[in-house]
């Protein structure tokens, strides 16, 4: 028997290889994120002082929408020829699949963010007043929060009619605390204030939701 972590690894590698091979998703997501930044800067004059002050919120809203578009595609490959059924009849554990998908999405969305952030910085001439390395931590924790829930709810919305619209409907309400924490932490850090509380909150949120999603995923996967 391959251990669960082994299956997570092969599944993740397979996904990454396929993404890499087609480059479809990557290219289009890149372009999409560029567009989002541009659309935002057209809508919110980046040279205006006001826009700069809410840049923390702007960045996260842009990430959120980009992530929703990306997450909607997560399971597309697995249900195309009902490949998911092949997974379900095999002895491989459901959680290995969930972890692989979550990690894959995490990598994907992180790359997106890494590409969008410089654009935002350039367009909005952002400058942090305090040390900015905690932003990395906030970004990682916040992205994980979006992605772990997003992957779970995307799997859930597989079983529903009008799949695409279902994901934001389920994901947004539950992600509100995480979103708030991310925005607040970002703004605090940019303004040189402490964000310890928010980081702890985010970390707890991640921990709780990852655990519960792992506990529940098998049920979701095996529901017809």
């Amino acid at each position, binding site marked *: *028997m*391959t251990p669960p972590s*082994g*299956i997570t690894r*092969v*599944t993740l590698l*397979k996904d990454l290889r*396929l993404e890499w*091979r*087609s480059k479809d998703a990557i290219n289009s997501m890149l372009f999409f994120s560029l567009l989002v930044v541009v659309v935002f800067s057209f809508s919110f004059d980046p040279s205006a002082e006001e826009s700069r002050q809410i840049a923390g919120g702007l960045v996260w809203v842009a990430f959120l929408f980009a992530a929703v578009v990306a997450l909607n595609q997560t399971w597309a*490959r697995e249900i*195309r*020829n*009902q*490949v998911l*059924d*092949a*997974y*379900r*009849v*095999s*002895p*491989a554990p459901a959680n290995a699949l969930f972890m692989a998908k979550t990690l894959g999405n995490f990598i994907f969305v992180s790359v997106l963010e890494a590409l969008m952030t410089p654009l935002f910085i350039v367009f909005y001439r952002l400058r942090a007043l305090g040390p900015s390395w905690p932003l990395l931590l906030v970004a990682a924790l916040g992205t994980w929060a979006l992605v772990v829930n997003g992957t779970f709810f995307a799997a859930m919305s597989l079983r529903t009619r009008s799949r695409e619209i279902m994901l934001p409907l389920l994901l947004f309400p539950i992600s509100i605390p995480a979103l708030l924490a991310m925005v607040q932490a970002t703004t605090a850090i940019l303004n040189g204030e402490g964000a310890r509380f928010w980081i702890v909150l985010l970390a707890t949120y991640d921990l709780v939701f990852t655990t519960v999603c792992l506990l529940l995923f098998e049920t979701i996967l*095996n529901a*017809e």
Partner: protein
Amino acid sequence: MTAPAPVIIVSNLIKQFGRFAALRGVTAEFSGGKIFAILGDNGAGKTTLLRTLAGLSQPSSGEVKIFGAKKFCDVCQQVGYMAHPSLLYDEMSGMENLAYFARLYGITDIEYCAEVIRAVGLDPGLVRPVGQYSQGMRQRMSLARALLNDPKLLLLDEPFSNVDLHSATEMVRLLAGTRDQGKTIFIVTHQASLLEGAADEFVWMEYGKIVERTRDLKRLEAAR
């Protein structure tokens, strides 16, 4: 060969979809080492029965025992399932597909996967992705996936629909060979005549029930 022992015991299986009962009390025993052809009109419940056997669909009531086990996951190592969709990733080559699914069953031997592909009459060296295979090749590859874990029980849903006569007869020959190695095979199909020589028993389903089991296709077709 010794007298085959019952491999599947199905007792009073009922599957409801809302108000509609797709399986209305199926009770049967199937002994090992045979080919069973499951026939019946559209909507008779053939696919539903097969999916229930494969643990993909939970029955509303009743019980399935495969190799004496009540929970499908205990015996999934010994069952192969082929559905009407291919259950393969369109973007990967046949070999890559099999290598991935083999890992799910804990098989890491690449040479073995190549052998399985050769066994269904394909070339393991093909680099084309499965999406570009012709329908017939894809069906064969799908069969290879089902045969991958060397299952003692094979469940096949309409393996011949949309396949030309020539490929179909070849697939039947292959299956008959597998049966002769002691495997049990269930085939759902509308083209019973293809299986005339090969199947050991024809099972006729009607309105969610098994209404007749016979060795004589001619008589069955005359009666229906």
